[in-house]
């Protein structure tokens, strides 16, 4: 058929209609329909370390999870709280430094220092972001972009926390398996807890704030308090990755505030499909290995990488996850008009 006199028609699969909502499902096919994608994700992630014998790629897996987490935190803020946060690096840095300082100065054990780094860091960054919360859209975005740029300068100028040399000799994890499974488990837990959360009443309110905070106020709910909670959750996720990185490489330095940590997660979520938490994982599973493969190009790498990224964004603005979901839930065919 010629292009102009046809259009694509999409129809939901029956099974989707059946399994939607809260009805009790008994038919094995329906259960499978719901279960398989989730199982693929969970088992896939859990098995991946075992099938990959190459230690280097196992390390890459850790980084994949790190960026997946970061972009989940970004996604959560953007699409469920309605705050565009370009400063993920702030979380990474604050979390990392908190746990590194606690570990090296107060001799906390890695486990404790990671936990402390996660929540202490989250607290700190939430307090830091508090003044910006009333602002909307691009204003918050750019202010948050500025935060991670300030910290290195201050650390540099005051020469605190080891200055530009950073904090070295932080205890690393006992072995590669801990490296991987710690982050993978955390990733999965975060993923499903968040998914649950955004469908609870709490999540409803957050989404309400995103849709229009006026109505939220009109129904007697304080917007700022809920935003704060949202930010705290997101920053806790970010700070965990920071603390994790610190203990993964046994080092903390000002480059924890690096721009990459701010920009890359956004890229991941854009490619994976913004607004879908799982999309972050998918996106990171694609982007990070890609950037590793591109190392073959040497200096050309980043350029190619950026171009591919732009390609993704312009040609698939919906993001891969939405695309897959559509393919999975609906079948399409061309229809003459």
């Amino acid at each position, binding site marked *: 058929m010629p292009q102009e006199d046809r259009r694509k028609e999409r129809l939901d699969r029956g099974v989707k209609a059946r399994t939607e909502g809260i009805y009790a499902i008994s038919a094995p096919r329906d259960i499978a329909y719901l279960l398989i994608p989730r199982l693929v994700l969970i088992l896939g992630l859990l098995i991946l370390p075992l099938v990959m014998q190459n230690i280097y790629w196992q390390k890459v897996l850790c980084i994949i999870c790190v960026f997946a987490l970061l972009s989940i935190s970004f996604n959560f803020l953007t699409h469920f709280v309605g705050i565009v946060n370009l400063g993920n690096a702030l979380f990474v840095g604050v979390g990392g430094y908190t746990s590194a300082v606690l570990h090296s100065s107060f001799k906390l054990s890695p486990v404790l220092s990671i936990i402390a780094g996660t929540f202490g860091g989250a607290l700190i960054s939430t307090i830091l972001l508090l003044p910006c919360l009333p602002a909307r859209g691009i204003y918050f975005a750019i202010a948050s972009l500025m935060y991670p740029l300030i910290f290195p300068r201050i650390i540099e100028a005051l020469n605190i926390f080891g200055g530009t040399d950073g904090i070295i000799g932080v205890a690393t994890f006992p072995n590669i398996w801990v490296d991987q499974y710690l982050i993978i488990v955390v990733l999965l837990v975060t993923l499903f807890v968040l998914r649950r959360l955004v469908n609870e*009443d709490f999540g409803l309110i957050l989404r309400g704030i995103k849709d229009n905070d006026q109505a939220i106020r009109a129904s007697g709910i304080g917007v700022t308090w809920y935003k704060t909670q949202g930010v705290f959750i997101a920053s806790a996720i970010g700070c965990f990755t920071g603390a994790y990185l610190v203990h993964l490489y046994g080092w903390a330095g000002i480059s924890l505030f690096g721009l990459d940590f701010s920009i890359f997660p956004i890229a991941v979520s854009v490619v994976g499909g913004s607004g879908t938490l799982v999309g972050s994982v998918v996106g990171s599973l694609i982007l990070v290995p890609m950037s590793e493969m591109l190392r073959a190009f040497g200096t050309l790498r980043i350029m190619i990488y950026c171009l591919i990224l732009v390609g993704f964004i312009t040609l698939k603005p919906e993001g891969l996850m939405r695309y897959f979901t559509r393919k999975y839930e609906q079948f399409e065919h061309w229809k003459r008009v």
Partner: protein
Amino acid sequence: MTNKPILKVSEVSKYFGGIGAAKNVSFDLYEGDILGVIGPNGSGKTTLINLITGFVKKDSGHVFFRGRDITRLESHRIADIGITRTFQVMRPYYSLSAYKNLVIPLNSPRVKRSSGGRLGDRDTVAIDLLEEVGFERDSYVPYKVASVLPLGYLKRLELARCLALKPEIIICDEVFSGLSMSEIATMVPLLEKLHIEGITIMMIEHRLRELFQLANKVIVMNFGEKIAEGTPGEITANEKVMEAYLGTGGGIELC
């Protein structure tokens, strides 16, 4: 009716860069009243609401609720003490289904307090509310995403959002505008029902016929000033109102 006003607005003013949207407006609202606010477009009616409900900062003046000064309260606090409002431009949560829209206000501190945490399943409560404002319970409508609902339903949704809070005062901002006669015909009894339930109502309207049959007191605004106040009868008789609102000549039976 008690002779003590439930809501007392005194001398509130707001200027948007020179233009007076509200100039020293003051009036009393008594428990059980249905107060109508009329006036030509841009006469500052909506601004008045925004000032009362704290969505816009007041330049001057005071607002008292049951004798308590609520001038400086934040908008959500004002809603919290029981003054709710609908929006002229409706503001549902488009991404949520109709009944989920109501689950949000049902989580508000006010409701938690009133129900003492024993509200039960919020979804069913929400659907009950929707039924109250005229959603067909067993149809798909309550489960539809707000963005696809027709205007009439959205207006009702707005009302329902206010009702969810069990408010003492509801301020309706042109609930009738854009509705068909039949829809209005169903809306009027709804408001009367609320009134009978003892909720004080303040409503901005252009549709004078319905307004005059509902309201027991009417305020006329023009260029941000209150130019007249009285029972519908007095208003229709008032010359100044004729001038300002309906232009010279012409009967009241325009609408």
